[in-house]
């Protein structure tokens, strides 16, 4: 039985990919993951239906309604130029989620193949690359991001690229570590004995089997990307105004916190926190699910 290490024979009639059924089952039993997914889904829906949900145009200023506290007309109040905070928080979801997801995908696109290659070939190339990464990662990431954006100018694409660049080494490392064990597996040898050239072996047989930890890490990095984007905006180096973005909105309201207009920073801050929490819960759950020690459950 499972205690002996022999896999249970499953009576599966459906043709779902390996582990998907099991995955869904474990998802159901893990409440924190469910909450995480619910939060992320909630934000995705907000981003999609932003025009329907928003009560005001997010970028048109209205100097007649400055510093309005939260009310039935302005749910989250307004700021110094009369922007409706609620509508801007809604629209900012689009920007921040785009930054989070795009930067993670870009980091994966760089980190996974590079990690696969360096893990497979090892040797001198691997040694040199890893030492470069060590040096690179020894540098405080936020300062690096600030330096790059300050030098090259503010744009949303640059923010995405910088975050991806900061994140890709972590993907590279996990894939490299997986690859080092998977390349010694029987199926790698079997694939070689069939006559697969190295590139086919790496990209068809090995990398798809190295992705579990990548999937567990991606949401964590997405949450982290939102924080970095917000931090950059907060110090005035992120997404340029007037594009609504949580970090720059918090920045706008900093002065208001002491003078009593707390809502200007509070609502975007709360929203950003909720989004990051959602990603972290999801990542935690995925890590549990992909943990090999729990596979027999």
């Amino acid at each position: 039985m499972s205690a002996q290490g022999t896999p249970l024979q499953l009576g599966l009639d459906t043709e779902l990919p390996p582990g998907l059924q099991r995955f869904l089952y474990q998802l159901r039993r893990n409440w924190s993951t469910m909450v995480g997914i619910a939060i992320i889904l909630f934000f995705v829906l907000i981003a999609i239906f932003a025009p329907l949900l928003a009560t005001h145009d997010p970028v048109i200023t209205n100097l007649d309604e400055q510093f309005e506290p939260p009310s039935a007309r302005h749910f989250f109040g307004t700021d110094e130029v009369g922007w409706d905070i609620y509508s801007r928080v809604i629209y900012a979801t689009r920007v921040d989620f785009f930054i989070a997801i795009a930067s993670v995908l870009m980091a994966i696109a760089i980190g996974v193949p590079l990690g696969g290659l360096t893990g497979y070939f090892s040797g001198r190339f691997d040694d040199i690359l890893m030492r470069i990464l060590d040096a690179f990662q020894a540098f405080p990431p936020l300062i690096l991001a600030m330096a790059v954006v300050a030098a090259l100018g503010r744009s949303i694409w640059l923010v995405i690229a910088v975050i991806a660049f900061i994140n890709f080494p972590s993907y590279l490392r996990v894939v490299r570590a997986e690859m080092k064990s998977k390349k010694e597996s029987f199926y790698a040898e079997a694939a070689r004995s069939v006559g697969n050239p190295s590139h086919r072996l790496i990209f068809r047989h090995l990398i798809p089997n190295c992705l579990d930890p990548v999937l567990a890490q991606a949401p964590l990095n997405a949450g982290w990307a939102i924080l970095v984007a917000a931090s950059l905006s907060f110090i005035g180096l992120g997404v340029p105004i007037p594009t609504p973005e949580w970090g720059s909105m918090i920045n706008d309201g900093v002065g208001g916190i002491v003078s009593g207009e707390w809502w200007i920073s509070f609502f975007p801050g709360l929203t950003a926190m909720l989004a990051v929490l959602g990603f972290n819960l999801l990542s935690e759950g995925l890590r549990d699910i992909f943990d090999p020690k729990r596979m027999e459950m």
Partner: protein
Amino acid sequence: MIEVRNSDTLLEVRGLHTYFYTYEGVVKAVNSVSYKLNRGEITGLVGESGSGKSVTAQSIIRLVKAPGRIVEGEVWLDGQDLMSCSEAEMQTVRGRKISMIFQEPRAALNPLFTVGDQISRVIQLREGCSRSVAENQAVEMMRAVEIADPDRRASAYPHELSGGMCQRVMVAMALSANPLLLIADEPTTGLDVTVQAQVLDLIRLRVKSAGSACLFITHDLGVVAELCERVIVMYAGRVVEQGPVAEIFSNPRHPYTQGLIASTLRVDIDKPISTIPGTVPDAVHLPSGCTFHPRCPFAEELCQQEEPQMVEAGRDHTTRCHIVSGRIEREMLEEAWTLETA
């Protein structure tokens, strides 16, 4: 706790059910299993993967891993009901009355302590003696299991010893507790045949001289024939046949036992390759009636509908088959196993 029992019986398992609650469904790993082990005897528990033989052993010492659970059944060891023991009492039972040897000796030994240390700890626990006395006894124990140069080897760490040597250490450790019952779960499966022969000799010698009982779990009928006095054959969580070893091998009554013996290849005689058709059934969706019927060349309609009961098949020999019980009149021909089924 008054138990009327045969004085030779050391362990009695009655109606044991251990189920695993997996998301595919309930796996009845051990399904209504009953047997007795006698003092001074080695009993072979034979079955293929998924037959429930290891779970049976884990159930006896109440160490079934989640999501498994002992649902029902009694286990009596020397007059003590193990199922109603507290966890603290169970720990004493595991340490002093029952010892286990596993398939992976290296995994069962602690890599941070020398093998001498690990054996002497067991002795200290049992005797309550001083450390140095226990250490001396540990060396003696290692000499008893034929480890060459035991004084030097006692200070070796598990990774410094070969698999065969580690298994000897496990045997020494298991036996230095002077257990009433030794459970050996495929102890020679990863070992080479020449080393296997040495370990089997050792187990036989030690069990006989200590007068304890041994439950020897294996998939290898050759090992059973060489070592055991009695055999229990399990298939898909059920005991399908049990009896004295000579009887089971010369006159197997259950078709599964017959097929198993027929498909065991031998180095001493030439015979065509036999095989049991089909595969071991899905653990969650067991076949109706007799669980062996889809693979049985003699199966008839009744076998699909009704599960056979355990019946007498000879002296001290029981089996679970409608043909043996006489509910179906049919001859079981040996040729059935050599038919082309590939």
